[in-house]
């Protein structure tokens, strides 16, 4: 008997004869939500507060066209190189006009900054949700020391549960990697002292593009 058969047989014996108390497949089909903490009524503000709390930097702009200037300002203030790699969809922006050298490609070990979009932004914890895919290489948010994420207002959701529903509706199944990013990488292994910038980015800059703000103005 293989290890697989032996282990499964032992588990079935421990469970006892007869059908399982609740069918696994049925639970999965229904996938009910657990208790969800209240989320407040200003999602963008809450997202911002939570993200700042986890040491992300956050800015709000009213249109995508403003993004390159914001990115340039952010890098300049910190005296970082005016170079970045980005996801292909963001190549349509006029980076050159803002004085930035941006290339659409996966990141290498020595790229200084990576610019991505996000499938969702979760207000409960100030978290970005990134999906892997041919046009969304994971290296861009991982290898550079600076990660910049551009999030449209319509992508802001209250909870991870809402993000799952949206993912099921838009994609059907999970991509190879779903990555939730909540601030710069960190470690507290040495004397439990929090240090930002472990193996991933040292800083995360989130730009929320809020068209509604433009309409109000």
């Amino acid at each position: 008997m293989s290890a697989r058969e032996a282990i499964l047989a032992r588990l079935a014996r421990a469970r006892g004869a007869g059908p399982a108390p609740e069918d696994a497949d049925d639970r999965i089909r229904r996938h009910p939500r657990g208790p969800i903490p209240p989320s407040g009524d200003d999602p963008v503000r809450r997202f911002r507060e939570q993200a700042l709390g986890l040491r992300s930097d956050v800015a709000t702009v009213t249109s995508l066209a403003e993004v390159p200037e914001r990115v340039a300002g952010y890098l300049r203030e910190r005296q970082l190189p005016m170079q970045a790699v980005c996801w292909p969809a963001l190549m349509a922006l006029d980076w050159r006009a803002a004085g930035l050298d941006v290339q659409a490609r996966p990141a290498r070990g020595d790229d200084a900054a990576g610019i991505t979009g996000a499938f969702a932004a979760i207000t409960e914890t100030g978290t970005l949700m990134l999906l892997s895919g041919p046009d969304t290489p994971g290296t861009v948010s991982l290898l550079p020391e600076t990660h910049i994420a551009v999030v449209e207002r319509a992508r802001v959701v209250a909870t991870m549960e809402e993000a799952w529903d949206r993912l099921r509706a838009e994609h059907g199944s999970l991509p190879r990697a779903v990555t939730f990013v909540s601030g710069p990488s960190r470690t507290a292994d040495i004397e439990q002292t929090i240090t930002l910038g472990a193996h991933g980015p040292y800083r995360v800059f989130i730009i929320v593009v809020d068209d509604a703000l433009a309409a109000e103005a």
Partner: protein
Amino acid sequence: MQVTALQFKRRAAANLHDEKLQRALARLQTKFVDARAAAIAELPDYGSIRDAAAEIRDRVLRDLDGYLRRFEQEATARGAVVHWAESAADVNRIVADIAEQHGVRRIVKAKSMVSEECGLDDALAEAGLEVLETDLGEYILQLAHEPPSHIVAPVVHKSKEDVADLFAAAHHRPRTTEIGGLCREAREVLRPRFLAADMGITGANFLVGETGSVVLVTNEGNGRLCTTLPRVHVAVTGIEKVVATLEDTTTLLRLLPRVATGQSITNYVSLLTGIRREDESDGPEHFHIVLLDNGRSRLLGTELQPMLRCIRCGACMNHCPVYQGIGGHAYGWVYPGPMGAVLTPAFVGLEDTLDLPHASTLCGECAEVCPVKIPLPDLLRHLRQRQVERHLRPWSERAALRAWAWLARHPALYALGARIVARALHLCAGRKGRLRHLLGVSGWTGERDLPAPTGRTFRDLYRARRR
């Protein structure tokens, strides 16, 4: 990993007098206990979320084979290969075979307690493979040739000076004791090794039955690097880690980081499902998931079953007065603190772990802080009972208990004995009312004075009161 739990008492005694260790353990209070309390206070529904979390784990344990079959089916459909291992030796053989099959030489590894359980690093090194631990804490331990002393914070026992010495010797760079500098140094040394690795090994915080995903909860980003860059990914984990749905996973994720480190969420949570798609530029071409039993299935259907709910947050050890006093190494295996005092005897046998179920005052704090409501003191008491049933307790203890039982069945003699002892102790203590030494319990009086009886027994007082 070798079990050295029989040296518990000797090591615990030594550690109590190790000043450096005591300074390190003192950090548990602010960094873990206070941080957890603050993070829980922020969560309005903590009680109901905790109830739901315990039920999520219980539901899976009631039909573990069903959920594992579903997990295997989903993972396989997405191109992963699921392996089943009865023992640590099986895991080591399976992973070495995978490495050989894919022509792997260089391995980067994220933190995994199950791999510690198996002694996987040593086994792979023996097979001629280069294995590099990449979690900062585990990397430090690899340089120091030491096992972890905490399941979440593996080098909680080391100071920054210790780390500086290890780095200076290994990296041939100027020695620094500045923590930020040490972290940057590790990043710079490890980055090229990530880029050159053929295979990444990780554990799994959860397995999702619905999607066949492996969930990794991390902060440093090394887990992402191990699962994004190398062409092979192997996840090694226990069979009990499966969770039904993405929603159930989310409920557990609301608690795990809060109770473990006081974070509302860890920097990274990754759900890894299947292999790289044809047109993707990153991700592994081969994904192997190794499911380990190693004693877990034996706990199902017994009094110890609730232990399988454990999500490895470390809160029980952070809050345990015994762990706070002696640290993790004294427990003599991978899992320390109250959860380890249950898991180690359950996995490796009662005989080799005689002191562990007694390494607790049964104060109940561990059960109080457990996010999945494991009744740890009850389980420890149950293990003590099993020891007695199997005659594993020392003869002196058994003789003393037998004598007490006999006396308790003879009330007149009991009363007489109690009066004699109470009066004798009262006289010995003198006016101070405290005993500094007492024959037979020097372990107790060595650390503190014994308050002496006032000379009158409960029966005396009760009788006087009734009059």
